[in-house]
């Protein structure tokens, strides 16, 4: 094991160590657990940076720790692959994790589950790192589930709240539905390829018949749909906001939910060989982007709005990878991670200042009271809305340009529409929270958060502001593209993200969409030029659809959950207790009834005994003569 390998394995090791130490000894560490947890992650981050440069100026490499499963012809190792895609993800994940950890020290200060919280969070970071570093599908699947599990325990962190524990459970189960497909995909790969390691699978996938490739791709995508909260499995993510806000920032915005995009980028070769599957990805991405933005426009819970925004932005990424513009997808993934993490953390800061209040109707005019938070939030909002020069502009623009360039004009239009809606709902939020008059409880002491929380915000805001420049349009000439595309260059139907088009025109359209969204929000919520109530009444159906999240939860409840429960009750009460056990007990009953009748033969009367005996004799004689 050389130093490179050692460093690679130390990256996940420290968070794991942290998780175990904090989990077991957390009770004794008290407040130090926060620092300890953060330190481990920061070390990890530093090591990741080292690896980043090793790969950036060197080659990608693989490293094997040990043979995990060796059952006959099924062999899987615990090993990693470190290439450009994974190092970018690594740095992003460990970086944001570090900030979130530090932020959490302030945010979770008085929580009695302080140590437990950091233990979980470290465990999550470990799992996420391993997910990124895995070099075979099974290991990927393992940590795919592991991050899901971490998400489950973190969402349900405040388990006393029924809603929180419900949300955790829901997240886990919905993810499992996706993983069901994912697992089948992994099995299908194995039975057809005889191996699960990335390199062998990718180099041999083209030998399979197309329908099989498509099936595999779609099954893998099912996993991605679950994890990345795409329609129709997006329902868990808004509920996941029951967890602590830093968790939402880290897991449900920046890292875990993007794993689906990472998965497709990682398996781009499989998807490249299957245009059908790629189209499905595109369609699902577009649908999700639109639906989520549509729902986000009318919600009142600030975290939920951001959650829907996350879903919508993930939709963008899927559109990107769906058309084969993997670089753009990953670029948006990273920049989204930064600004969405920022948005969540600032939302957390708002909550912290407002003593846990989340309803934007009860806020307003916070700008003056918590300036740092407000400014960083607005930076995040601008980035999300795609206003230059913030990072979101560049990354979203890269996707939209790719869509246009590919000729998918319909999805380009949807993309622009969503850009408008995005700008509208995020500024609706900003205007309602930070501007206008305060609707907060008068007794509430609104205060700015401590430095341990605001400093990470500022760092993130800076990144959100400047990160985009590494993806300067035209995207296919940018630093980021050139860096990452080495990994995607071997992709079969690779469509260059951008090519000979008036990029400035397209960018202008996007900017206009964003700005008009902001303006619309300004008109509605600052100038109040329209009577909102009247509008709501006029577009009652549309409003109701949006406000009730398209009734998707209700439909699931009605069409799946309830019937399944009833069916289960039926199986239990009728099939199990009545039919099967009834048959068993029925036999017993029959025997006992028969027995009570048979006993009557022995009635104590000598005459009847003699009679039975004689009948026996006659029967035997009859047997002989009748025979």
């Amino acid at each position, binding site marked *: 094991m050389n130093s490179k390998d050692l460093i690679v394995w130390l990256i996940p090791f420290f968070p794991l160590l942290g998780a175990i130490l904090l989990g077991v000894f957390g009770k004794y560490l008290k407040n130090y657990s926060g620092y300890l947890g953060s330190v481990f992650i920061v070390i990890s981050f530093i090591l990741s940076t080292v690896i980043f440069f090793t790969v950036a100026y060197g080659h990608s490499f693989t490293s094997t720790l040990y043979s995990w499963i060796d059952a006959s012809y099924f062999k899987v190792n615990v090993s990693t692959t470190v290439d450009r895609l994974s190092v970018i993800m690594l740095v992003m994940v460990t970086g944001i994790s570090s900030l979130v950890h530090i932020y959490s020290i302030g945010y979770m200060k008085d929580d009695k589950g302080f140590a437990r919280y950091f233990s979980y969070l470290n465990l999550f970071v470990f799992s996420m790192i391993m997910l990124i570093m895995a070099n075979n599908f099974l290991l990927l699947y393992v940590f795919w589930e592991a991050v899901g599990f971490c998400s489950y325990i973190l969402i349900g962190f405040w388990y006393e709240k029924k809603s929180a524990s419900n949300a955790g459970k829901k997240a886990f189960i919905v993810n499992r539905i996706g993983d069901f497909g994912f697992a089948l995909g992994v099995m299908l790969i194995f039975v057809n390829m005889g191996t699960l390691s990335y390199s062998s699978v990718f180099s041999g996938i083209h030998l399979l018949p197309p329908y099989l490739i498509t099936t595999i791709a779609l099954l893998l995508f099912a996993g991605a749909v679950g994890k990345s909260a795409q329609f129709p499995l997006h329902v868990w993510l808004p509920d996941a906001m029951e967890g602590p806000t830093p968790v939402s920032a880290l897991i449900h915005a920046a890292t875990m939910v993007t794993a689906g995009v990472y998965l497709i980028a990682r398996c781009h070769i499989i998807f490249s060989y299957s245009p059908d599957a790629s189209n499905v990805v595109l369609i699902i991405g577009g649908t999700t982007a639109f639906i989520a933005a549509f729902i986000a426009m009318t919600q009142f819970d600030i975290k939920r709005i951001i959650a829907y925004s996350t879903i919508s932005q993930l939709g963008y990424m899927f559109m990107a990878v769906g058309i084969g513009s993997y670089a753009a997808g990953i670029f948006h993934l990273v920049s989204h991670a930064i600004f969405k993490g920022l948005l969540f953390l600032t939302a957390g800061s708002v909550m912290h200042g407002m003593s846990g209040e989340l309803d934007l109707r009860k806020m307003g005019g916070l700008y003056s009271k918590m300036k740092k938070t407000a400014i960083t939030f607005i930076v995040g909002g601008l980035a999300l809305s795609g206003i230059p020069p913030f990072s979101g502009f560049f990354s979203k623009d890269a996707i939209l340009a790719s869509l246009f360039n590919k000729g998918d004009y319909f999805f380009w239009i949807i993309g622009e529409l969503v850009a408008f809606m995005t700008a509208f709902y995020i500024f609706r939020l900003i205007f309602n929270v930070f501007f206008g008059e305060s609707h907060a409880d008068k007794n509430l002491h609104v205060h700015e958060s401590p430095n341990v929380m605001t400093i990470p915000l500022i760092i993130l805001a800076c990144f959100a502001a400047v990160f985009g420049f590494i993806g300067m349009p035209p995207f296919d000439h940018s630093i980021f593209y050139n860096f990452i595309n080495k990994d995607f260059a071997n992709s079969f139907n690779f469509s260059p993200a951008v090519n000979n088009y008036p990029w400035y025109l397209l960018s202008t359209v996007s900017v206009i969409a964003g700005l008009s969204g902001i303006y619309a929000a300004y008109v509605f919520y600052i100038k109040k030029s329209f009577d909102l109530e009247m509008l709501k009444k006029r577009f009652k159906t549309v409003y109701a659809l949006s406000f009730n999240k398209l009734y998707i939860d209700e439909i699931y409840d009605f069409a799946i959950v309830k019937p399944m429960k009833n069916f289960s009750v039926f199986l239990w009460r009728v099939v199990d207790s009545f039919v099967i056990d009834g048959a068993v007990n029925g036999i017993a009953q029959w025997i006992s009834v028969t*027995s009570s009748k048979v006993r009557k033969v022995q009635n104590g009367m000598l005459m009847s005994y003699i009679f039975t*005996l004689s009948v026996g004799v006659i029967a035997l004689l009859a047997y002989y003569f009748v025979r």
Partner: protein
Amino acid sequence: MLDLAQIYNGYYLEKSLLSVMPEAVLIVFAFLILLAGLFNNPSKNSVNSYYLALIGVAFSFLYLFMLSDHTIKGFYGSIVFDKFDVFLFTAILLSGFLTILMSKNYFDTRSVLIPEYYSLVLFSVSAMMLLVSSINLIMIFLSIEFMSICAYILTGYLKGESRSTEAAMKYFVLGTFASAFLLFGSVFIYAATGHLSLYKIHNFIFEQNYNAHYAYNLHTFLAIGLILLLVGLAFKMSLFPFHAWTPDSYDGAPTPVTNLMATGIKIAAFGVFIRVFTSIYSFNVFNFYNILWILAILTMTFGNFAALLQTDLKRLIAYSSIAQAGYILIGVIAGGYYGISGTLFYLLAYVFMTAGAFAIIIMFENLNLASVNIKSYSGLGYKYPLAGAAFSFFLLSLAGIPVTAGFMGKFFVFSAAIKSGYYWLVVIALLNSAFAAYYYIKIIVKMYMSDNNNNGGQLNLSNGRNSIIINAVNTNKDSQSYADNGSGKTALTEAVSLKSAAPALIIAIIICLIFTLILGIFPQPVISFASRSVTSLWSI
């Protein structure tokens, strides 16, 4: 070793005597007991006759052992002493021995004539042995009657107890009725073949089988004869529908006598049936096998069904013994070397498990702890852990659970039947033993797990059968109450402890326990013994 056969070689009468030596010894001792009863102090009677009986059995064993290598025919070919006898004599003598061990304690508390009892037991044991060694219809009839008459008297031995008398009466009428069939069957066989000796009949049928000119009416005579003979023997084996005497007389008889009937008489009946079967029925004239396996199925099914809801332990074991007879019959039907040795093994196993169960029943009866009703057994398992465990073990053996003699016996018999192609018979028998397990387990449930909480700790004096039946222990079955060192016990039951049970009874239980276990775990010697003894059946 003194070799009697050598000494008496050449003297016909002496040789005849030699062939019945074990029986003769018993009869001599039976008379000795009677004589001793006359001259002895009545208070010592019980002790003396008890020991005399034991010594008699021991001497009989001794003679059996000394003669065990020989085959002796006597009394003009009506009696044979061969290896087959050796095995069954052992079983019968053991049954008698165990019965005597059980009797002492049982009759100590009851006012009956003791010497006569023991001599009757010895008489009936010798009759059983005679029956097994009979190879002539006259001898068979005589021994059956000898055995039965003793059994009738023994059944009604509890003077002044109506159940005992009733049992004797029913047993007598039914027994004589069945004997009449046996006799009449003999007439027809005699008419058809002209012989009364089993082996001559055997040879006759063997030759006639190939003779096309065999007259029709003789054919019919033989069939009627065989059927009626079967009825007579089936009665003694208590096969359905000739079983009717079994539950009633088992129930009414004194428990040691019940044990003797359940073990000794059954063995003797099966022993003679095997002799008759191998010499006559095994030709499968008139498809006799069909009758037999139908009888087997009916018998075991009836026995199990009737036992299922039974609450009287003695009756329960009576019905179970009917069912067991069905299983044993399978071995006979399977026939051949393998089937018959299986049957013999089963019979010996049956002695130990049944006698063991009866010994425990007597023990509880004598300790005045429990009537023979299952209800009164609740909680006994805790109070007497060892007795309870032993009883459970015997019951499991009867149910045919492995590690017990019962399993090995069943296994032996069933595999023989499969070997002979009786698949369905075995399947039915196995299903039967599955649900038969229920009523055995029911008793164990009562002993260890019963949870009906009626009449807690209250004394129940009832004059059921001359003995005071105290339902003291059957009271609070909740296991809880026994745990805290007997707060639930009454003073009376506290006083009566296991130690007051007669040592003889405990010896009997231990013997049964050990043999049930050995036959279940290491049956090799017994199986060889049985296999060796079977060979003589065909070698005469």
